[in-house]
Every structure is written in C-alpha cells, then in structure tokens.
C-alpha cells in the first residue's frame, strides 16, 4: 500500500521540470516532494501563503508562525516569500502555478473532477482546490486507480464537480493517462498489470497510445 503510494508519487515527480512552481495537495500528493529528480529545482507554493516552502520542520525546531496548508510546521528555503491569501490565490488563479497535484474521488474522460463531496458524508469544504484546478497550468490527479475495486476513472463523474474540464493527467499505480479531446489516452502502463486489467479497472474506454510504454520508475 505504502509502496503503491510511493510508486505513484515517484512517477508524478518525473513530470516536474526545473523552475516549475508546484502546489501539492494533502496526502499522497505531498509525498511527491520526496522524489524530485536530481538537478530539478522546483519551487513549492503553499496556498496559505508561502512561495519556496521547504521540508517539514524538525521536531523541537518548529516555528509556530510557519505552517503549510495541511497545518503542519514547515520550513522555508532561501529565497522564499510570505504573502496574504488574496495574493496567494492571485498566483494560483492567474496561472502562475505550473503544476498542481491532487487526489480525486472521481475523474472523467472530459477532464471533469469530483473530489469534495461524498454523498451522505460531512462536506469538509473545497478549501483551495477549486481555485487550484481552475488556475494551475497543469492539473495532475494522483490516486489509486480504484476505490477498493470501484471505478474512480469514469465516462462521466457522478459526484458533484470540483471543476469542469480541468484535469490534464491521471497517474495511478496502473499507469499514466492523459486527458485528450478524444478521451483518456493511456501512455504508460505498469507491467504488473495487463492492459485488460487496467481497462477493467477503468470506467471509461481507454485509448491506447501508439507509443505506449512501460511506466517510468
């Protein structure tokens, strides 16, 4: 399980380019920071007001005035900047975040995303997610391919949308998919699964890339 999450996080990390401004969601996406390739400098943004966020603060050395959007004590790198929430979401909405990585309850072949309301459960609130997926230049959904076997990648989302037509890429333990005008294009697959298994775990018809290859590790 931890392995699956690390596999996904490591693959997401390969999408990041030198100089990218990156916002990572809570949970699995946060792990992406541990796998940034050598020679690639990315600048992490935290929507509560940091550009240039560093790793979590060491126990006992926390600065209680500095937290990330998951309310954990963090450090900042040399060259960081603090700002208010209007400035932060100006950066996000204005397209100045190159990549945002977040989880999903459902994502569909039109790039629609549902990740904030589970029927019958307490609605925790969208926080900054709606702004992030609308504003970021590239939206990567990083998640396990299914919810204990139930489809999460669908022809059409059934849960209320977080945003419409925003997802660019889906990365799961089974493969790497791009949302295209024609539908979901499988570009890389994990050889631990057959193409049939991947299709079966997917609630939308996958388009198999002519350049299909094994998932980068």
């Amino acid at each position, binding site marked *: 399980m931890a392995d699956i999450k690390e596999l996904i996080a490591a693959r997401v990390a390969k999408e990041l380019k030198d100089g990218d401004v990156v916002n990572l969601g809570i949970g699995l996406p946060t792990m992406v920071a541990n796998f940034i390739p050598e020679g690639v400098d990315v600048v992490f943004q*935290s929507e509560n*007001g940091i550009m240039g966020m560093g790793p979590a603060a060491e126990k006992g050395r926390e600065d209680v*005035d500095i937290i990330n959007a998951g309310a954990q004590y963090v450090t900042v790198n040399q060259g960081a900047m603090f700002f*208010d*929430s209007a400035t932060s*979401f100006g950066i996000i909405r204005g397209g100045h975040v190159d990549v945002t990585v977040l989880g999903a309850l459902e994502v569909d072949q039109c790039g629609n995303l549902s990740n904030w309301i589970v029927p019958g459960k307490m609605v925790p*609130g969208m*926080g900054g997610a709606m702004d992030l997926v609308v504003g970021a230049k590239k939206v990567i959904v990083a998640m396990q391919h299914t919810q204990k076997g139930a489809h999460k990648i669908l022809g059409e989302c059934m849960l209320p949308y977080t945003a419409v037509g925003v997802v660019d890429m889906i990365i799961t333990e089974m493969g790497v998919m791009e949302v295209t005008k024609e539908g979901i294009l499988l570009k890389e697959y994990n050889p631990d699964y057959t193409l049939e298994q991947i299709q079966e775990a997917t609630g939308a018809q996958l388009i198999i890339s002519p350049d299909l290859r094994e998932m980068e590790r």
Partner: protein
Amino acid sequence: MKNKIMTADEAVATIKDGDSIMVGGFMACGTPEILIDALVRKNVRHLTIICNDAGVPGRGVGKLISNGQVKKLIASHVGLNPEVAQRMNTDVEADKLECILVPQGTLAERVRAGGAGLGGILTPTGVGTIVAEGKQVISVQGRDYLLEEPLRADHAFLRGSVTDKFGNTTYNGTTRTFNPMMATAADNVIVGTCEIVEIGEIDPNHVVTSGIFVDAIVGGEKPWQI
C-alpha cells in the same frame, strides 16, 4: 491622537448578539486567540463568523463553535473540526449552525472587494459546479466567470506580529493569511498583537496593514502551537 491600546475585554465590549465578525488566520495560525478568548467570556450569541476555516476544537474559531456562539459560518473548509458537523446536524433548530462554503480564493477576493469598494469580481472558480448556483455567469473575452459579491462585517479580529501605537501592523510567516484584507472590510477592527512598538519603529516599506484601519490594539498575543 486617540489612544487605541486597551484590554481584550475592552476591545470586544461593543460586540453584540447577532453581529458579524471576520477572523484572520488559517487553521488558527494567524488567529488572535486573546480576542477569541475575550469573546468567549463575553458570551455574545448568534454570531456570523467569516474565517478561512473552523479552526480545530480548542483553537481559534473552534472555541466559539464549542461555546455555541456561532449561528452562521462562512468559510472555505470546516473538515478538521468535527464539532461543525455535530452542530450542523443537531435536531434543536435554535442551536443549528449554518455553514456556507466558499472557495478559498473567492473568499479572499470577496473580502478584498468589500474593503476596496468594488461591487464584486469575476472568477472562473466554481463555474459549472454547485458553487455557481444562484450566481450570475458573465462571459468576458470568450470565457465564463461567476460574479462574486463583496463581503463586509461589523468587526474584524486581526492577529499582528508587530503593531505600532497607531495600529500599523506586520505579520510574521504564514500568519498573514486573510488578515490584511479583513483589516479593510469591517467597521470595527481589533488587532491582537504579539508586540507593541512606538510609532516610527516599523519601516514604512514593511508595514502591511495601515493604522488607519485599526480601531483597537490589544497586546499580549503569543505564538501558539496548533
């Protein structure tokens, strides 16, 4: 010039049942606990609270919720405070907490608009979602946007790091959050601050909130662990 320095209890004295209050901070980092505590002591009820989130039980806005003082909460995220769900779902109609969820960037812009005299802003956030319900959709340069209206409140609680006796304030680290916008969007603005200094001690290039916005200054705010 008028003396703005007072105790927390003096600063919240004019707050009445049913008033609306903007509270700075993100998960209570940047929330003035000494003002929240004074408000709990004063025990005014039926408040409308505008804050990024519901804090956590025992911290920030969470204390007001625990004490049953909040009638309506306008926030972007309430999931880390389980008391919110309990109070939203109570069968006692009079105790019910109403919760209005607003995307975080939209909340920040609405407060800013309220302080800057704008009639609203057009945002792409929420288009095609339930957030768009009841809102005007306006197309500009070929793209759809939601018209989001300004927000103001009767009072604002800010959490300053350094404040001079005029009210000029700076915020350290990620305590800044919604504080600078809320300073501009309420009729009565109270700063709970960690350090009070003489006028002139803060470099004019570094002031974030001008003292013209500040009605009351309360010292003794501490750095708090979440």
